[in-house]
């Protein structure tokens, strides 16, 4: 290996090493529910941010998200693509609800300490049947 190639590889390794590794979101099971595809965007200002995930209901009865919260945000609410707040987020039996950009999302507002890309954002969901679960959502930048 030439010295320059060695230097180049070392530089890449060093640069790579300096970046905080983004932990991928592993699916979480709570009761009859399985939650995957979780992530959040790094808020641009402390005023608001958004989080996304998919919930599958493997049970035979519907379940409902009663409450969402994050310790770093003052409020958390579900919104549809028209930005109207959703009072109830119901996951039908044998079905799924997917939150994704441009569609339903969890809107978080007034961050005390806004998460940065590479961080994990804790989001706690309280379900009517399945109970309480806290997700550690990997944070990434808008447009990435």
């Amino acid at each position, binding site marked *: 290996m030439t010295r320059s190639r060695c230097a180049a590889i070392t530089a890449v390794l060093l640069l790579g090493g300096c970046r905080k590794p983004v932990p991928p979101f592993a699916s979480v099971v709570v009761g009859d529910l399985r939650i995957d595809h979780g992530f959040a965007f790094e808020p641009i200002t402390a005023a608001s941010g958004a989080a996304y995930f998919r919930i599958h209901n493997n049970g035979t009865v519907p379940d409902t998200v009663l409450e969402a919260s994050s310790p770093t945000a003052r409020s958390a609410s579900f919104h549809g*693509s028209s930005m*109207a707040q959703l009072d109830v987020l119901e996951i039908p039996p044998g079905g799924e609800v997917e939150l994704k950009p441009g569609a339903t999302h969890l809107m978080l507002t007034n961050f005390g300490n806004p998460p940065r890309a590479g961080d994990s954002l804790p989001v706690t969901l309280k379900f009517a049947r399945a109970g309480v679960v806290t997700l550690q959502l990997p944070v990434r930048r808008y*447009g990435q």
Partner: protein
Amino acid sequence: MFFARPSRIDRLARLALRTVSLALALALACRPAAPKPFNPDGLSGPQIVPPLPKPELVLTSTDGRQFDLKKETEGYVTLLFFGYTNCPDVCPVHMANIAGAMKRLGPEITNRIKVVFVTVDPARDTPEVMRTWLDHFDPSFIGLRGDSASIASAFTQLRLGQTVHEPGADTTSYTVGHAAIVLAFSTDNLAHVVYPFGIRQADWSKDLTLLVKRS
């Protein structure tokens, strides 16, 4: 001496002819070229038929200047988006994707594009708030603010649905429902295509290049 007069007349006639030809040539050269019809084929954004004229819209830019949209963007490919900075989903995703696409393009393309963000939430989007938010994506992005009547008029001209204020948990936490499309005006001051949510950065890069090159 005798031949001097016709020869002078001759010279004068030739000079007059040259002057007229030069004037004619200049007149032809200065006449605006017949506008080349913009060809929207092959663009990723869906076409609007008939194309939408750029709206009559005079607002205030983040530096406090009066900004006449038509005058200030004349000759530029212009992306127009209505949104608000408290919007956590559609607005920052669109802005980040346009900014990401612009970073991939050279100045010969980006210098001919103006990206204009008009707030639909002037109560919370002060010039400072808007500037900070836009700078996060691209400092060249233009932020405009005006009264709700001007915005409503722009929405009517563009045949977009009006904005809807959705109440939140308290009076300060409302959200604003608004059109989620980016309008792309070519230099003929017409939007032949719009960009709905979900356009990828690679498609933006390709389309911005085509919009500039075909203008």
